[in-house]
Every structure is written in C-alpha cells, then in structure tokens.
C-alpha cells in the first residue's frame, strides 16, 4: 500500500493522511515538525486510506499537536505498521470448543500501531500511535498476571470472510488441544510483540502462532513461525518484531477461568 512508502513533506503547509480510523496531521516549519492525531468515529470513513496531502483551508482548532526538532533538511516521512506494545487477549464473541487431539485455525484481526519516522536524510523515530485505542485487560492471576489489551474478536475460521481494513493486520493462530479434556476457547493471549508484519496483496499479515494446550495445570507451548504466512502471497516484511523470538515459549496462553472480581 502506498501509505507505507516514503512521503514528501511540503514545508509550511498543513498536511493530512489517513489509515482507517486514524487521521494524522503534519506541519513542518523551519527545523520543527508538528504531528497531531485524530480518530474518526464515522463508519463511512473508517475504511479509507489516504497518503499525506496538503489540506484546503485551515486545520481544526482542537487538534493536540506534538512538536519534534527534525532539522531543516528532513523533507520525507514514512509510516510503519507495528504490532501493539502489549500482548492481546482475544475473546471470541462466541466461544469455541476443541475436542481432544483436534486443532483449530483462527484468523485474528487486530488494529495495528503506526510508527512515524523521518525517512531522509536519516531515519528518526518520532512517535508511535495506536490506530484504535484498545481497552486494558488483566490476563491471569490478580497478583501475578500480565497487563494486555482486550480484543473482542469474531475469531474467524476462514480467511475469505475477513474484510480488508487498512488499519488491521491478520494473525493466524492455530490452537491444538493435546489434553485429555475438551478445551473451551473463551480467551487466549497472543504475544503480538514477537510478530513481524508482512505486506500482503490486500491485507497486512503476521507470522503464524501455534499454541499447544496440554491441560489446565500445564503450561501451553507457544511457537512463532519464522516464515511468512501462506494464506495470501506476501511482498515483504514491513516491520520487524518488537521483541524478536526464535525459541518456542512455554506460557499460560489459554484461560477459561473467570478472574475473581467479587465485591
């Protein structure tokens, strides 16, 4: 997609670009670059993507601008899709049951983060903004769990059903039940910080995750594929993993228990 390529900044002009619900505003003056973020709630505009263009008229007054000193010769900017900075707890809208020795493949679509970098004369990371602000959730025990983002998902089983949203990436998650009992998939934790993002023909993809559930009292084995997903031809890696990982992880990634919340 063109929005992920280098884009020219026109000095002393207010410019606007869009990735799904995330609208970005830029303004360069002298050696300073100003960036503002706006989130669109109008459903009609939410699937649009636009490269940076100068706006006609004046910018909205209620924008909350941030300022960066980038130098006078920084005339190119680049947007990079990123995975969220914390794990995601995916909660399927309708829980699914996996019998013993069976596996299920889910396509989890999650909103990406966008990193804004100056591209020329040198790369300078300016900021990272989420395309959608996800709610916090606690995964695990209230005394020792971990803070994640909550993602209500349809956890689709077929890729054709997924709508091509410019601000979302799709993570294939394969869950295998190796325990002696049926597995109720009410929620599962996806450590997206270990995933790369690939540019597909229509969508953004991540590498595949395989979770092997071995029982309530056992930790699950989580494996991150090192190759690109095979569900759609992908062009290249658009962003590396925040925390690269090569060895399989042993983690508690599946949870069907309700956390204690009594008054």
């Amino acid at each position, binding site marked *: 997609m063109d929005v992920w390529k280098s884009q020219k900044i026109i000095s002393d002009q207010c410019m606007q670009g869009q990735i799904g619900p995330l609208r970005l505003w830029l303004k360069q003056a002298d050696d300073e670059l100003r960036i503002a973020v706006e989130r669109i709630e109008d459903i009609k505009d939410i699937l649009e993507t636009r490269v940076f263009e100068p706006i006609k008229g004046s910018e909205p007054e209620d924008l909350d601008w941030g300022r960066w000193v980038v130098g006078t010769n920084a005339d190119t900017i680049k947007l990079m899709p990123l995975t969220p900075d914390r794990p995601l707890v995916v909660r399927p809208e309708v829980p699914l049951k996996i019998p013993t020795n069976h596996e299920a493949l889910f396509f989890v679509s999650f909103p990406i983060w966008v990193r804004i970098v100056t591209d020329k004369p040198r790369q300078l990371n300016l900021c990272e903004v989420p395309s959608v602000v*996800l*709610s*916090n959730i*606690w*995964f695990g025990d*209230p005394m020792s769990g971990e803070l994640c983002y*909550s993602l209500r998902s349809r956890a689709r089983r077929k890729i054709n059903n997924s709508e091509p949203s410019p601000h979302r990436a799709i993570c294939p998650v394969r869950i295998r039940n190796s325990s002696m009992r049926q597995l109720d998939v009410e929620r599962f934790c996806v450590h997206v910080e270990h995933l790369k993002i690939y540019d597909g023909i229509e969508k953004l993809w991540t590498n595949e995750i395989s979770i092997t559930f071995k029982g309530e009292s056992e930790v699950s084995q989580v494996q991150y594929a090192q190759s690109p997903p095979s569900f759609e031809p992908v062009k290249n890696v658009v962003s590396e993993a925040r925390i690269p990982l090569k060895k399989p992880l042993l983690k508690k990634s599946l949870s069907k228990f309700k956390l204690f919340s009594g008054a």
Partner: protein
Amino acid sequence: MFAITGINWTNLLTKETITAVIRIAALIAIGFPLLAFISAIAGRAVKKRFTPQASMLVRKGIFYTGSVLLLVSILYQMGFKLTALLGALGIAGIAIGFASQTSVSNIISGLFLISEKPFTVGDIIKVGDTKGTILSIDLLSVKLRTFDNQFIRIPNESLIKNQVTNITRFPIRRLDINVGVAYKENVGKVREVLLDIAIKEPLCLDEPEPIVRFLNFGDSALEFLFAVWCVKDDYLKINTKMMQQIKERFDAENIEIPFPHRSLYTGSVTEPFPIRIVNGQSEDKTKSP
C-alpha cells in the same frame, strides 16, 4: 636532652612502645579502610541477589562488628587489660541497655520488617491516617514521603504493632465508587449506564470485570456500589475520570443524583402543608409553601 618537666622520654621510647605505636597506626590506617571496603563489597554482592534493605543490613553489620574488634585490638595494643575492659563494658552495657530499650526494640522490629518484607522501597503504604511512598527502611525507622511532600519518620516498633496497608503490593487495584440515584429511577437502566461507562473507558480493565451492586434503600437514594479494576498506576486518573463521567452520563440520561432531603407531612401524605400568615390579617390553612 629528652628530660622535659620530669618525664624521662628515653625510658618511654623503648622498642616495645614504638612497635605498639606502629601496630596501632597500622590498625587504624589499614583496618578501617579495609573494613569499609569489605562491607561495601559484601553489601553490593547481597544487593544483586536480595533487597536493598538486606544489603544495608549486611553492610552495617560487617562494619560495626569489625569496628568493635578493631577498637578492642587497639586498646589491647595500648596495654589495656581485656578482662577488666570487658567487665566494664558489661556494666556499661546493662546501663546502656536500660537507657536504650526503645532503640533496641526498634532495631529488632527493623530486623523483622526486613526479613518479613511486608513492603519495599517505593511502595505506597498506609499506617493509621498516614499515607505515603516509602523512601527508606532503616534499622530504627521507616521514612515516608506523603503526597503533599512531607517527610514522615515512623519507628519500626509501631509498624510491627499496628496494622499496615500496602496499597501498591499487587499490580492491579479495584476502585470502589458509591453512587446514589433517586427512588424514581430504573435500577436496570442505572446498572446499564454504569457498566457502559466502564466499558468505554480504556483504562478500566475488561477483566476482572466491573461490578455494579445494588447495595441499599438509603434515606434519600437507592445506593449502588460501582467497582472497576485498573492498573495501580492509573488509580488516581481513573478515580477522577469515573466521577466526572458518572455525573455527565447521568445528566445526559436524566438520571437524578439526589441530595439528602426530608419530607414533612402533617398526618396525611397528600394534603398540602398548612401555613399561617402572621403579619397579614387572614389565616389560610390550605396554601402550601
């Protein structure tokens, strides 16, 4: 030539005396720096594996024990008899012990606090009416910085004796808000609005789930407990946000937050309250205020 004011310096400067002076000088010059070095090394080694309090304890323990041994050695070199010295120290120890009962109690309490670890430096604790962040845990006392930037020293003994609440021990906290609405309001709608406020606030945790409990038929209101979970660092931010959002949403949904009020009746709930105009000539028993 050394005989000044009756002292025979030649007799004093014997080989033994000079050796003793050299030994004392060596003990002072080498002993104390070496002791400081060893205690620092030991403290650093303990700090890597254990808490800063344990490190401090080891460092001070080594330094003070070593200092006492050095002092005894110096006194021995000076010709003091150790048996007499220890006897004198024993008597002095009893006297000092009586005088420093509180200090000793604080030191022992400090040792318990360090081994039990109910809190660490940086935790926010509440002791009685005092709430603050722990700056240091020392042998005699714990030092706090309150939120209005005051320095408070709490003796260890009182921390052992009294109830101490560690507010930031666990990573997440529950914020409890008591909400009252007018008797005419629909309980289901109130519950729905409150849960919606929690769902729409990203800093409120989705799990553990927010709770709305109908608590009581109060004097002036239907009383609810609205409890949301958040990360401990977001507690104050969430508190302010939730309060503001409850007021704004209740106003938008026409849900009345009643103030305490009392109705007066004169025997019947439907009849108007009778008044009498004192300055005027007439008397009206049917007008209500």
